């Protein structure tokens, strides 16, 4: 039960989120012995505003309220150098800089190289996943995805799995 403590407390509205802003979300299937810092700012990178909006809402459901967004890798890199983020969730297919190129830039940057990075993309071929893994991605989600997958991958990345 300890693994779920943060989740069930939030569900009952008595967590440190406070009664006025208690997030409501479904419990993840897998028991994870992690506690997550939901206060970390998250950067969502996607050129489709619909997807940014969906991710922002799902992240809010999970518990992450501080969510910024960028429409491509170049804009994202600029934001990453201006502010300290705790997590990047990025699409792959963007112009002028793709999510893959952004990942490479992040891992090559002394200040950013340890930043947790999750790819959320429609690119589902094995070669894409392998390339992203080699480039240092922490996790990979294929679109379309559900909230449970997003939640578990974030927990896996931030929980140190």
């Amino acid at each position: 039960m300890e693994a779920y403590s943060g989740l069930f407390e939030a569900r009952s509205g008595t967590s440190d989120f406070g009664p006025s802003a208690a997030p409501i979300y479904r419990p993840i299937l897998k028991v994870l012995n992690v506690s997550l810092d939901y206060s970390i700012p998250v950067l969502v990178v996607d050129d489709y505003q619909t997807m940014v909006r969906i991710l922002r809402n799902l992240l809010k459901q999970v518990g992450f309220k501080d969510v910024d967004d960028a429409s491509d890798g170049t804009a994202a890199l600029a934001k990453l150098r201006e502010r300290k983020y705790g997590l990047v969730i990025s699409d792959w297919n963007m112009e002028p800089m793709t999510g893959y190129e952004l990942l490479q830039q992040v891992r090559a940057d002394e200040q950013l190289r340890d930043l947790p990075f999750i790819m959320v993309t429609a690119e589902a071929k094995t070669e894409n996943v392998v390339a992203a893994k080699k480039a240092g991605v922490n996790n990979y989600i294929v679109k379309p995805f559900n909230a449970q997958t997003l939640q578990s991958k974030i927990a896996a990345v931030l929980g140190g799995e």
Partner: protein
Amino acid sequence: MSTPKVYSIEITGIQVPGDAHEVQRHTEIMEAIASLRRHVQPVQVSIMSEERRHDLLEVQRLKAELHAISDAIQQTKREIATLHYTGAQGREIARVTDELGAVVVGTEAATHSILEATEAINDISERLVVRLADEDREMVCQISDRIVSIFEACNFQDITGQRISKVVGAMRFVEERVEQMIQIWGGLESFKDVSAAENPDREGDRALLNGPALEMEDSTSQADIDAFFK
């Protein structure tokens, strides 16, 4: 084929003056020549005819192939002209890309409406949950689950947009290939005398089937339609 030269001595049969032996010898020689001529002429004619026949057949075959190539070239140019004037540069491709663009714009707008409404419901349910207890609270949690399902389902718009972009990219590729083919055949100038195939106009009731209008097209508003029924 020119006729073999006939020597005057064969025509005139000049009598060689001299003794009978010489005359006889001369006669024998002439007869031998005549005999040789009879044997040689038919053989030469048949060889030439067969070679000529072979050449003629070859020429006819090449001519037929050249005609076929010419027809194929004209047909290809006609198809390219059709693609160019009514397809790639004409109304068909332009309409298709406009329609696809309209799909993306339409689904994006609809998705944003759905998300806006869902966000509003989510805000209300978050405010409600802290005021309720027990079963009522549980019901609000169930609402929240459904809200998450709506957010998940809206993934479709992103996938749709990407698929359509791929289709538009493929059509642009075809368009570029048509342009290249036109250049290979000598540019638009060489197509000016080539008539493009026309799409047969729809007739009768079929002509009324147009589907949803694009934004830039003429369409009748609901108010105008209502006016018809007043």
